[in-house]
């Protein structure tokens, strides 16, 4: 996804937008070519995430919109206070690009796992959180954030959703990927391919045909809009590359709790035991996300029926 974002940053600079791109020694697809393309508007701050955010605030206070790129695990935790104080409390816009967000790098251990990035960003209270499904959506999120001049966190994952064209951000905060009945599978970011594959297996094996809905944004969400969407289903299943607590499942759960609906919610996400990470119903490395979704829905539907 970062490749598409880099191209968009280059295009923004070339069309006169006053933005700078800062990275903390993190490379990736398109980074080097962006550095060559935008010259001194590209700044590699070195391995110094806190200083990168502070310096970004210095640019923001001067009227230039900072686009800040680093690994999600380091930005969302190590530099969280700088994001809260230097950017948010100063009422500055800016785009924080969380590379390898969520569980992308969980196999490298707790140091690199950003399985709590949504929860941490939500805790700040007023940071827009985007979770695009592919590079095109990520680039759109960037453009929207630059135009809005508000602080945004964009989750980036290295495995984009390749199937089909994704709707642009201007079309609303969710994509109805596959229509269905009774069950709504709500997912976000890089979980979409596994969610869609699980849906196909459920249809083939158990005649259960859930709708698949992709949330492009986690915050802000129009509660009435989301609830009116969900009221048509008896079972809501959230699927995310994030802790079960604090992320998409919690957001939807809070909405349902405050709604007149009586739909049942199942949250599929990561749980932490010591330094190990598991999906909700099995060990992370032994049972796939796809299998977890199928098992959870079949079990619940059998219970309901």
């Amino acid at each position, binding site marked *: 996804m970062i490749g598409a974002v880099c191209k968009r940053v280059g295009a923004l600079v070339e069309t006169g937008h006053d933005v700078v791109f800062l990275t903390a020694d993190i490379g990736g697809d398109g980074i080097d070519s962006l550095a060559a393309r935008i010259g001194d508007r590209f700044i590699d701050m070195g391995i110094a995430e806190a200083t990168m955010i502070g310096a970004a605030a210095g640019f923001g206070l001067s009227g230039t919109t900072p686009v800040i790129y680093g690994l999600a695990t380091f930005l969302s935790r190590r530099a969280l206070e700088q994001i809260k104080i230097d950017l948010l*409390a100063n009422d500055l816009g800016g785009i924080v690009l969380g590379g390898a967000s969520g569980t992308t790098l969980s196999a490298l251990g707790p140091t690199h796992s950003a399985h709590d990035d949504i929860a941490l960003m939500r805790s700040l209270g007023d940071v827009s959180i985007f979770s695009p499904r592919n590079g095109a959506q990520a680039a759109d999120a960037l453009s929207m954030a630059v135009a809005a001049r508000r602080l945004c966190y964009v989750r980036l994952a290295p495995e984009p959703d390749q199937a089909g064209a994704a709707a642009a951000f201007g079309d609303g905060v969710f994509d109805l990927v596959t229509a269905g009945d009774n069950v709504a599978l709500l997912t976000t970011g890089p979980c979409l391919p596994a969610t869609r594959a699980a849906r196909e297996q459920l249809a083939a094996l158990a005649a259960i045909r859930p709708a698949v809905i992709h949330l492009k944004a986690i915050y802000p969400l129009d509660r009435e809009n989301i609830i009116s969407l969900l009221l048509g289903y008896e079972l809501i299943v959230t699927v995310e590359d994030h802790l079960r607590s604090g992320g998409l499942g919690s957001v939807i759960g809070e909405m349902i709790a405050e709604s007149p609906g009586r739909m049942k919610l199942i949250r599929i996400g990561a749980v932490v035991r010591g330094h190990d990470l598991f999906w909700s119903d099995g060990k992370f490395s032994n049972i796939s996300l796809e299998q977890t979704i199928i098992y959870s829905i079949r079990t619940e539907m059998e219970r309901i029926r």
Partner: protein
Amino acid sequence: MGRALGAAHYGGCLSCVEILYAIYRDIDRSAIQASDPARPFVLLSKGHAALTLYAVLEHFFGWRFDADGSVDSISCHPLRRTDRGIEAIAGSLGHGLAIGCGRALWCRRNAHRSLTYVVMGDGECQEGSVWEAALFAGHYGLSNLFVVIDRNGFQQRAATTDRSRYAASPNAWSAIGWDVHSVDGHDVERLSVALSPERSDDRPRVIFADTVKGRGVSTLEGELGSHYRAVPDDLLQSAIADIDGGFR
């Protein structure tokens, strides 16, 4: 103002009066008044000295920061108010220098000659984020960046050198590419010389301003307990008498 707040960080407020006075006396205040994008930037990183910042801004610009009025409000740590010369929120130590780096870099990239000033505490230098930013400024040769360290010798619970002998050490800053100066932090003219924008090299400048915590008030001077406290009536009267009498 401190009375209206109930309590304040008087020790650190009184130690940096001359530092902030010297900075604002000598800089282009008309650019600040006009909110010129290329104005000099003053960042009070030791945000607990906000009351001094309010007083100095009132002195030079006539802006009121009263706690009692219905028009304006103050806080113990400053909030960003660009219409009143407060460029950024402060209070969480170790943030100002990185912001100053970004501002200095922005000025350099836009060919603005204005300077960025960051006022920090000596205890604040124990924060790791200070050193991240100091390394960055030294590496990039941000000669348009001035740091003044209010070296009053105390933090909340101890003498600063009892907690870290090296954090506020000029040698440490010199080793990572800073142009280091030391002055009497209560001597406005010496501060003014050290703050002179005339430069002979491309290093950022750090000025160690040796000061006295609680300066000017006999019951607060050099007292650890002056860091954060209330001021009862009797202390207020004696403080006013000390200041009026030119206590030394």
